[in-house]
């Protein structure tokens, strides 16, 4: 090895050391922060999730640990992407299923829904987890913006009848927004799809063994 090459190697090692040191320092900073916030973040996420969930199932009746009783289904009848199903039980008896996220195309991008269905097939409710609809038009599906999404609560496949699961403009019973029919239309369809799936698969869904390693908290 020539003198030059030795020199070169020294330079390289020096650079590597400097960067390595800062890598360690940076990583340490982050790791410390992480360990300080980890629990809170998890709790936040759990809380946020449960806040939504308990709008769809009566909190007081749930006796099992919802977040541990989870399965994942991957069925095109339901959604293009895998859907987690959280199973609420009352003293071991099936109480409700929470599907999250059910994905539906929207007007401007995918809409992710959380759908809660009682064991009797009655909708506990529907919530929008995320969407990219137009502010002022399609975004009225957001609970913050209007009550529209609440209109699903208490509905089921027989109430109204299956053929009425449409927006009013198409001959159904659900309101559309003026100037924005597509968004509600898609959501109604997605909810209906979930109900149909529930009807067909509910027993199996309650019976499947829970996943052994349920995620800490759903984070969509």
């Amino acid at each position, binding site marked *: 090895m020539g003198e030059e090459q030795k020199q070169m190697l020294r330079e390289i090692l020096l650079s590597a050391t400097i960067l390595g040191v800062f890598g360690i320092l*940076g*990583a340490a900073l*982050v790791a410390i922060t*992480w360990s300080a916030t980890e629990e809170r973040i998890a709790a936040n996420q759990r809380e946020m999730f449960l806040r939504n969930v308990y709008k769809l199932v009566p909190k007081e009746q749930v006796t099992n640990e919802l977040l541990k009783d989870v399965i994942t289904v991957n069925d095109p009848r339901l959604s293009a*992407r895998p859907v987690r199903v959280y199973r609420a039980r009352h003293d071991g008896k099936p109480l409700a299923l929470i599907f999250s996220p059910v994905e539906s*195309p*929207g*007007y*401007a*991008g*995918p809409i992710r829904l959380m759908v809660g269905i009682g064991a009797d097939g009655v909708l506990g409710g529907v919530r929008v987890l995320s969407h990219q609809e*137009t502010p002022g038009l399609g975004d009225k599906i957001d609970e913050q913006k209007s009550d529209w999404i609440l209109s699903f609560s208490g509905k089921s496949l027989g109430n109204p009848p299956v053929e009425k699961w449409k927006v009013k403009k198409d001959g159904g019973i659900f309101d559309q927004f003026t100037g924005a029919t*597509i968004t509600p239309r898609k959501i109604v369809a997605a909810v209906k799809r979930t109900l149909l799936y529930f009807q067909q698969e509910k027993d199996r869904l309650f019976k499947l063994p829970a996943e052994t390693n349920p995620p800490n908290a759903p984070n969509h």
Partner: protein
Amino acid sequence: MSEYALILVSTVLVNNFVLVKFLGLCPFMGVSRKLETAMGMGLATTFVLTLSSVASYLVNTWMLEPLGLEYMRTIAFILVIAVVVQFTEMVMHKTSPVLYQVLGIFLPLITTNCAVLGVALLNTQEQHNFVESALYGFGAAVGFSLVLVLFAAIRERVNVADVPEPFKGNAIALITAGLMSMAFMGFSGLVSS
């Protein structure tokens, strides 16, 4: 197959990174004074973005996720990007001096282009697989280059227009970008409906 085409259409037109998603705006405003430079920047970005999108996918799936280090994503990705940029520069310098001369000056700029980090992060957020990640990065870069070149051509014209004094320069450029973004809204809904 059509799914992949959809990713391309979506990233290039419907969810154009610059005009709709607001990523990579600094180079969009900064390197669009001349058409030729804009083309060079577009090319360089396309290369780096695709490569770093893939590389960060690999780091994420093979390193961070198995080790449970998702929270280190930002640091890991930015390091990866810096490596890719540097690496590109090296390779280019060695193998194609001509290309290097054209694109060389843009490479350092790309490190701080947030479209690059944005693509890496969005890839994990959208849970793209390998091919999807590559396409997503490529599409985003093509979309970036497309609007960059069009924008540069318009700016060359606007530069010699009789723009009122307070609006000369950046102000009118931003307004032009706004009008472009408005025009791009015409593509919304193309993919999902």
